[in-house]
């Protein structure tokens, strides 16, 4: 049995930022994550937008946190050495219904204190974003909207929390939880932990984790989302984040020029059972292609390099009916943060959970501090962290100097994204244990060949670091990439 003050369950964005904020207190923090690495759940598959706060109702926790988080996002990213592009957004309307939505968002945004909002006519909108369809009738410009790499942000929070003393335990799925006189007893696959406070950030499973000790009141009913990714060859084609507000019912389209020059298109909204979890649906991908052609007609869709799917953790109030828990009314739109005698749960935190991750981390850490009787501050807490050096982003002189210091930075492993051996080795040193772990830390394998050329050397580096043969190294899904050695050696 191991003792800790706060056990955080789940190492997605929310768990990592909760842990980071908690390490500012003079307490022991342990993070229990079911998977082998951080950022494998919803945090790895979302729209990557830093919202301004004009989409939510005034006076709510969500709005308050979002407006503040957006304002502070530049500082946060500087502290954590994370790339952030405040590219601004255009919400585009193609008819009267959508125009009304834009006007409402303008008023709402102003009331929420979002700076710089402006309505633009079709001419102005197309001057700012020449690729936009000629059919656009009105656009809402929000200069404060930005984009961040959610993997980079999550990993940065993890590394910073770890540096400040948080103890991350991977492959520790919490299966049982019980209340004791002094707090909680948590059982994972192969260990037991005693904690005074539990912070439940289990993402899609946050309801199930809560129900290990509590009666159901809120449950998550997921829906699925599909995305397309276009190559960085389209970089510059779309300069702002574009929200297409559809005239008919439906989800519309969002386009995001990402921090590494690619373009993200999505998300769709479809029932969970239309495809296996985390798998894309053909109808979803075709819908996105059609929407792209409508909103930005010249977009070279043949530059698509990948598609992926996500799950939305929609929370609903539930009530018991003949021994069954059935959902009531519409999905809860506010952030659901529950504190029940030392069990703090974040349930169904959807958009803008990425934007608000740091703010929510502080929010739950304050809650935990109250339960623990306001412990002192951690005198050694340092909020800053340095990321892995990206040779590609350096000036020629700096890159040359780096190679002189360490020749590994002269050897390119991922040609599509210009990632060097030095970066890959550093990612592994910092905790990557799968191909995707390396990809999320360095970008290797994200380009047009999708790992075709760099998979093999990365597998071999992972194998060497883990002291196993390459066929023991797994991808995200837990399966090995190659099966073994050829019986007769090389054919």
């Amino acid at each position, binding site marked *: 049995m191991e003792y800790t003050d706060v056990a955080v369950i789940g190492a997605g964005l929310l768990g990592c930022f909760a842990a980071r904020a908690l390490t500012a207190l003079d307490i022991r923090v342990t993070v229990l994550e079911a998977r082998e690495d951080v950022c494998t759940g919803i945090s790895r598959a979302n729209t990557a937008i830093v919202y301004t706060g004009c989409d939510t109702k005034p006076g709510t926790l969500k709005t308050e946190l979002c407006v503040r988080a957006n304002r502070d996002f530049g500082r946060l990213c500087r502290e954590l050495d994370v790339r952030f592009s405040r590219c601004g957004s255009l919400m585009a309307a193609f008819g009267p219904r959508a125009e009304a939505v834009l006007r409402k968002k303008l008023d709402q945004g102003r009331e929420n204190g979002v700076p710089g909002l402006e309505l633009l006519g079709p001419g102005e909108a197309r001057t700012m974003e020449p690729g936009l369809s000629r059919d656009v009738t009105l656009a809402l410009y929000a200069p404060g909207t930005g984009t961040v790499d959610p993997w980079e942000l999550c990993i940065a929070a993890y590394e910073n929390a770890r540096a400040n003393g948080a103890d991350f335990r991977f492959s520790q799925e919490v299966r049982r939880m019980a209340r004791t006189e002094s707090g909680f007893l948590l059982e994972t696959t192969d260990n037991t932990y005693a904690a005074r406070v539990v912070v439940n950030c289990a993402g899609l499973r946050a309801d199930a984790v809560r129900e290990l000790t509590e009666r159901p009141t809120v449950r998550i009913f997921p829906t699925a989302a599909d995305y397309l990714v276009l190559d960085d060859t389209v970089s510059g084609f779309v300069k702002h984040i574009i929200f297409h507000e559809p005239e008919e019912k439906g989800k519309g389209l969002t386009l995001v020029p990402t921090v590494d020059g690619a373009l993200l298109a999505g998300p769709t909204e479809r029932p969970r059972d239309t495809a*296996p979890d985390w798998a894309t649906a053909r109808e979803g991908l075709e819908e996105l292609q059609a929407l792209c052609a409508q909103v930005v007609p010249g977009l070279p869709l043949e530059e698509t*390099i990948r*598609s992926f799917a996500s799950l939305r953790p929609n929370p609903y109030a539930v009530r018991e009916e003949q021994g069954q828990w059935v959902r009531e009314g519409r999905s809860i739109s506010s952030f659901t943060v529950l504190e029940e005698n030392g069990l703090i749960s974040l349930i169904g935190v959807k958009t803008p959970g990425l934007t608000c991750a740091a703010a929510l981390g502080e929010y739950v850490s304050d809650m935990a501090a109250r339960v623990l009787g306001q412990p002192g501050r951690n005198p050694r807490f340092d909020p800053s962290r340095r990321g892995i050096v990206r040779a590609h982003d350096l000036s020629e002189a700096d890159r*040359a100097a780096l190679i002189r210091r360490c020749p590994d930075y002269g050897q390119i492993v991922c040609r599509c994204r210009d990632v060097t051996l030095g970066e890959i080795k550093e990612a592994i040193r910092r905790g990557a244990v799968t191909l995707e772990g390396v990809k999320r830390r360095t970008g290797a394998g994200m380009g047009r060949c999708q790992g075709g050329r760099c*998979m093999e050397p990365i597998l071999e580096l992972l194998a060497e670091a883990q002291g196993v043969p390459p066929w023991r190294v797994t991808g995200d899904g837990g399966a090995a990439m*190659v099966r073994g050695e*050829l019986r007769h050696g090389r*054919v």
Partner: protein
Amino acid sequence: MEEFDLLVIGGGAAGMAASLAAARRGQRVLLAEREARLGGILNQCLHSGFGGGLTGPAYARQLIDRVNASAVCVRTGTDVLRIFPDRTALLSSRTGLERVEFQKCILASGCRERSVWSLPVAGSRPAGVFTAGTAQKLMNLGGYDIGDGVVIMGSGDVGQIMARQLAQAGKRVVAIIEQRDQLGGLPRNRRDCVEAYRIPVLLQCTVDEILGAGRIRGVMVRHLPTGRRWELPCGTLLTALGLIPDRALCRELLEDGALPEWLRLCGNCDYVHDMVDSVVREAAQTAF
């Protein structure tokens, strides 16, 4: 800054042949190759059929020996990162980052394979999905077993050659799936690879969906004329969906879609060639 008459980017058959031709004319040539050795795609093609009956590496050997005996300045393990309009290029290797100056440049960077993830193929992204060329490299250069029960999507030459190689290695090739009404690739490969090894072929079909969570367990096949769909179990999926000239380096240099007069393309980077002899012949003529 070092100066050259000609910078050749890529040390495959095309780059080597172009370098040799230029050196023969007395030009000072720099040949930059990112891999540790020259040869390009030839190195992983262990089948015979190059320039008559040679294997890929044997064919490459002949060219490499000639390059080594020539005045061409060869740098292996050296990636060309960028070409600038002022006729300099940025090279990266373990020994450092450097700019070189040149009069002319030949881009012989070969081609890349179209990945399945660029198509609207639905499903998960499990282990066990490879492009045919990656599979070929993993098996032939890495010595890795990539799995059994193989479905090959697309019927390009590389896919057909891999079907034969897998069959020879004792693996079961479930089917080649081709959307057109006949196989692609060279007639020679159809005969020697597909027919000789009785590889099942599904024509006018495509893969709609990839199934499986950790490792691939099957594909959803769709018969295009009828729309009929069925699940085809498999343990590995290779894709041979076509090759695309790899011209990333000259993207920023295009002026109204045209290359500057000092830059030429050759080999598979110009257009995809079936036969290495034609690559070599054209490359020798491409040299300025």
